[in-house]
């Protein structure tokens, strides 16, 4: 991946919890960050649960469905792909995702959602 000039620094690697989520504010919007050390990857998706109508996705359980990393909402258990935000229970629901990158223990993010 090429480092993009749009990227801004968000937090340190220490702020992330391995195999679990935390939340950050990016331009007033809540972004859920998930750190999967095994894949050496951080994923960023919308923290707002469109089913439960609350900002809670960073507090869900991380897992996989046939190798796609997912998070299950803590409210009503719908699962969302961490890669592209697609909901597995409802085809019509797809969350915003952000491009993030770990660089020297600092997490960088492109503040414009994809």
């Amino acid at each position, binding site marked *: 991946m090429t480092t993009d000039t749009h990227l801004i620094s*968000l*937090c340190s690697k220490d*702020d*992330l*919890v*391995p*195999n*679990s989520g*935390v*939340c*950050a*504010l990016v331009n007033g919007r*809540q972004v859920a*960050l998930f750190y*999967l050390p*095994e894949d050496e990857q951080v994923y960023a998706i919308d923290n*707002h649960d469109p089913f*439960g*109508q*609350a*900002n*809670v996705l960073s*507090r*869900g*359980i*991380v*897992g*996989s*469905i*046939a*190798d796609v*990393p*997912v998070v*299950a909402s*803590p*409210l009503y*258990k719908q*699962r969302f792909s961490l890669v592209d935000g697609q909901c597995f229970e409802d085809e019509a629901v797809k969350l915003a995702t952000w491009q993030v990158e770990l660089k020297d223990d600092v997490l960088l993010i492109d503040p414009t959602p994809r």
Partner: protein
Amino acid sequence: MNKTKLILIGNGMVGHQFLASLAESGAADRFDVTVFCEEPRLAYDRVQLSAYFSGKTAEDLAMGQPAQYAEWGYNVRLNEKVVSIDRENQTVTSDSGVELAYDQIIMATGSFPFVPPVPGHDREHCLVYRTIEDLEAITASAAKGRSGVVVGGGLLGLEAAKALRDLGLETHVVEFAPRLMAVQLDDAGGKVLRDKIEDLGVRVHTGKNTQQIVDGENAVHRMEFADGEVLETDVILFSAGIRPRDELARSCGLEVGERGGIVIDNDCLTSDKNIFAIGECALWNGRIFGLVAPGYNMAKVAVAKLLGEDKQFLGADMSTKLKLMGVDVASIGDAHGHTPGARNYTYLDEACGVYKKIVVNESGSTLLGAILVGDAEDYGTLLQYALNGIELPEFPDSLILPQRGGDGKPAGLGVAALPEAAQICSCHDVSKGDICQAIDNGATNLGDVKSCTKAATGCGGCAALLTNLVNHELESRGVEVNRNLCEHFDYTRQELYHLVRVDQIKSFDELLHKHGQGKGCEICKPTAASILASCWNEFVLKKPHVGLQDTNDTFLANMQKDGTYSVVPRVAGGEITPDKLIVLGQVAKQFNLYTKVTGGQRIDLFGARLEQLPEIWRILVDAGFETGHAYGKSLRTVKSCVGSTWCRYGVDDSVGLAIEVENRYKGLRSPHKIKFAVSGCTRECAEAQSKDVGIIATENGWNLYLCGNGGMKPRHADLFATDLDKATLIKYIDRFLMFYVKTADRLQRTSVWMDNLEGGLDYLRQVIIEDSLGLGAELEEQMQQVIGTYECEWKKTIEDPEALKRFRPFVNSEETDSNVVFVMERDQIRPATAEEKAANTPAVPVKMMAS
């Protein structure tokens, strides 16, 4: 092609079976089918009717589904009764005046409950027990009354008695014959059954001939019997037998039996070749069959005949096994020994209330019949001996005598010994051969076998035998039974538990790498977390465990609909000092939390933001509170009544014991939540019999009840042991809880676990009281380890800066979640609705810290 015009009259259980069989035959499109259904709903499971009183709804009981019938292409006329058949012009007329032409008719009109024509039988609150509407009427009458009488001590009568008792009525059974269940049981069996039922608080009056029913003095009715005695009661339920509904057949001139019933031949055809009759309305060979299995067979014969296939109805086995008020009762074949030369063997244990009798032929080589009361475990085996003429062992009594001591294995009959033709499921006529066939055709688990053969989907009586057979057949084919937890682990919860213990596994990653695949999920992670906690009791917020937990466990609080949390400190036994009460009030006030007394005798503070939790708990812990584990699959509350200390009726200190056991088991992680209650006397103000573990004081110690449940499917706890001293009581509970923790499935409450436990209550007693598995000491030791390593999770959390980091709302900001908005209602906060948020209703300002 011209379709055959087919009319089905009656959409009961058998009518439904007919429609299902016709659809399955694949030939339904050769017929133009119209169904007349007198009741306001499609067919439902009458056999399970009583379950309606234990929480099942009409939907749960439904068999016929409108969408399914539509898909099969049937026209259904609900709430519409056929009032006449014109056989000459081949038309039927309904009560709404519709007239339809037919080529063939299937009559499946069932039967109605017989009500003896004694004067007063038609008074208000004199009811019967056959339809869902009847049950609604019974519930309504029971709500107004205190006592109820069932007239008729047969199978249905006793089921009705259970229903009345469950509705809280003082219950009586009045029977004309000298014993209960006269058809199926003999005098000795009837007596054992009567003793057991009376022990359960139902009064039985046999040899009573009701003369008339008049106004009562202290209750709604007064029943007067031929012997001069009287009985007063508020509700009367008639269950004195059934009568075939043959009125329609009679009026159109079909042949009917002398005592009722539409006469049919082996093809299920009536005296009119265009009209079949099936189910309880049909009279075959002078007999009415009051069970559903023979009706199902008739339905299949009728379908075969319509399609020109060769199949006949040749009678049915009337053996039955049931649980009446928790008492096992079974009757097989020639139970009364009417066969010439028949000989009996009997076994009677009055102490435990067990009676067993087998009837064998003159030479002692084959089993003709049997009666079992109080313990019907041998039913499956005996039935197979009787149905298949399997040669009896040298000493036939070995089949019913208890096996004690030594290595004498029960003389049961292994499923391997059954012949291919052995009938496994009588409801759906499924043989061992059919089941082997299904497995050979690719069924790889019990569910598959059930769905393709229908075995065990009727009365369920054959379920245990079927499970044994399927497992045996699969294993003999080298197939493993799939009970996998999820896509990441090819193991059951119980197997994972053993792996964790045996391999001394301490983290999810280790477990996943050694025994699983993928990344895990919201099913296996919390399961593993719970197992790890029950085994090693490590701090749940330790780094490796953090991501495994549901949010509630992660943040040690219950998430509410708006993403805020509730705070529930432990209030053991519901006992709380004024000072502590004041602290709760102060905390609630400082942080402006919504406050409510819970159903578990403690206090819940709602509306705490993630970042407020540590500060709130710091104050609570300082004041001596501990976490209440309201978030955990673990011990919740031990409710108590005030007991002997204050209450004028109390016989022991229920509060003291409640506090002691709550403190003993707090923190124990388990497959599902666990609740206790302790009552100080039999009035049971703590509702102990609805709990996983219920304890009630007696004059001589404590009675222990296990596996009760409130919630969605309430279950009364079973009385497990009586008059225990405290040490024994605690020992049994230690063993029970640990055995449950080790063997239950994920999210299985003790009630469901018990209902699935092979051998049921008796088996549990053997394991826990008699220590039949030799596990007792180990279970106690493991419990001791859990108790010894208990720590309050909140106390640890507020002392651990690493763990506290998790409670920051944002890693890069001190702001709070602006989506959480409260408004005031009844002087307290509540989450604002979406409309209120949109309308900017004045919100309550956030109080971050204690002021």
